[in-house]
């Protein structure tokens, strides 16, 4: 253990590590000083009850954890949809069909070049009544379509980066286009684009807070309400920021593990 710490220090230059620590401690002190100068009265002790409490020995989730549940629901459904929409759009853009390319291109330009907030409103007030869908579905759809357009560009980059010789080799062996994608091209592309796809997932987690504008009571919405009722602005928002941070870091660690495991030796 000791020797591994020593090795770590040696490898990363003691100076670098000290500089990092000084920067972090300095940042935190600055933050505390700023709050103190404003005469902010920290009341962290009031926070736990918004997270959870016990009633007759039973665990009861507070508004923040209730909101987290909604946030997680929105996120995982949107994430799956995002990856599907992204892949389909990428394949459409790479196909020979003019129609498919045109549709994909139009979708891409519209969703990437307008604000997500506007898209959520549009989905809820214009599309939802037509399709008769509830606000949760509308929010999930808006999010997925928005993130899907970015994901599609990631897929496309990954697919295009696979050596042309791979296509030729599998065509020569008699594989069709579907088999080619399924067994040769995508397995190689996915390994390369795992890191940017993870960033996309993290964006999605954070962007999920925007669906609060159509009154979906996810974590940020609930936090906002508590903050305006109790004036515990810093405490509440630091708390949910920490939760978002924990979610994002967990996700990237899981992906990093898979990335290591399925790395292509090349």
């Amino acid at each position, binding site marked *: 253990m000791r020797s591994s710490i020593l090795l770590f220090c040696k490898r990363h230059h003691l100076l670098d590590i000290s500089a990092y620590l000084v920067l972090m401690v300095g940042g935190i002190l600055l933050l505390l000083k700023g709050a103190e100068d404003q005469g902010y009265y920290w009341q962290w002790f009031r926070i736990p009850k918004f997270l959870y409490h016990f009633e007759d020995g039973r665990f009861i989730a507070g508004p923040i954890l209730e909101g987290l549940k909604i946030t997680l629901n929105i996120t995982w459904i949107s994430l799956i949809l995002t990856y599907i929409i992204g892949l389909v759009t990428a394949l459409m853009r790479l196909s020979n069909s003019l129609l498919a390319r045109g549709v994909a291109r139009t979708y891409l330009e519209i969703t990437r070049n307008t604000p997500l907030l506007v898209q959520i409103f549009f989905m809820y007030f214009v599309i939802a009544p037509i399709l008769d869908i509830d606000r949760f579905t509308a929010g999930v759809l808006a999010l997925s379509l928005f993130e899907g357009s970015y994901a599609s560009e990631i897929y496309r980059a990954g697919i295009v980066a696979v*050596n042309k*010789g*791979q296509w*030729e*080799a*599998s*065509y*020569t*062996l*008699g*594989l*069709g286009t579907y*088999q080619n994608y399924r*067994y*040769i091209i995508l*397995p*190689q592309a996915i*390994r390369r684009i795992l890191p940017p796809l993870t960033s996309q997932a993290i964006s999605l987690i954070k962007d999920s807070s925007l669906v609060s504008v159509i009154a979906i009571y996810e974590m940020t919405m609930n936090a906002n309400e508590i903050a305006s009722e109790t004036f515990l602005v810093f405490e509440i928002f630091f708390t949910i920021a920490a939760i978002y941070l924990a979610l994002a870091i967990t996700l990237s660690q899981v992906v990093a593990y898979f990335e290591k495991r399925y790395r*292509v*030796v*090349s």
Partner: protein
Amino acid sequence: MSAKQFGDYIIRVDSIGKTFDNGVVALKNFSTNIRRSEVVVLIGPSGSGKSTFLRCLNGLEEIDTGSIIVDGILLDDNKKNRLEIRKEVGMVFQHFNLFPHLSVLKNITLAQMLVRKKSKGEAEDEAMQLLQKVNIAEKANVFPSQLSGGQQQRVAIARALAMKPKVMMFDEATSALDPEMIGEVLEVMKNLANEGMTMVVVTHEMGFAKEVSDWVIFMEDGMKVEEGTADHFFSDPKMDRTKLFLSQIL
């Protein structure tokens, strides 16, 4: 050169032309017929259209004019025909193009299972036999990146043979190899020729062309300059251009 028996024409190429999108003319009015069991070697300076010709034969490039018939099937826009021809024509590339995410064994079994609909067991048996044939059976479970260039190319040959093709095409199969590895790949190609495989070979290995080929075609600017049996071609070329080329490389 030998008392080799040839069959009927398996490949009929009738005055094909190909111009690339950038305006480069790769093939001009090129015709040739290839018989079963014949080994045809294409030689010529780079950019003369040799590789393009091979790539047209299995539809990797589309021809603009003329026609190609392989084993009685017309190569046209019909997807089914094209797939059928690709099953019958194996191809070995300069840069091997093995699938880096699959083991050597899976490189060879994948298309057998997907295209020839063989069971996993059958495909693996076939793969192991072919790996033995190209002297590399002990590497069945490693990944391509762990092999030398010569070993990779031998695996690529085994992969193509696993489809039981009627024609094998070699597109500068030894050009990317270190000199000491060229021999082992040529050896495999010679054995194939001796077994009666129909082969179309683009190569700069004149030794191989002299020793193994039944017919040599010299190309330049997408056209046939001269052709003939290996004996005739190397010892008694007629055209000045051919003489010049041979004097430069021999």
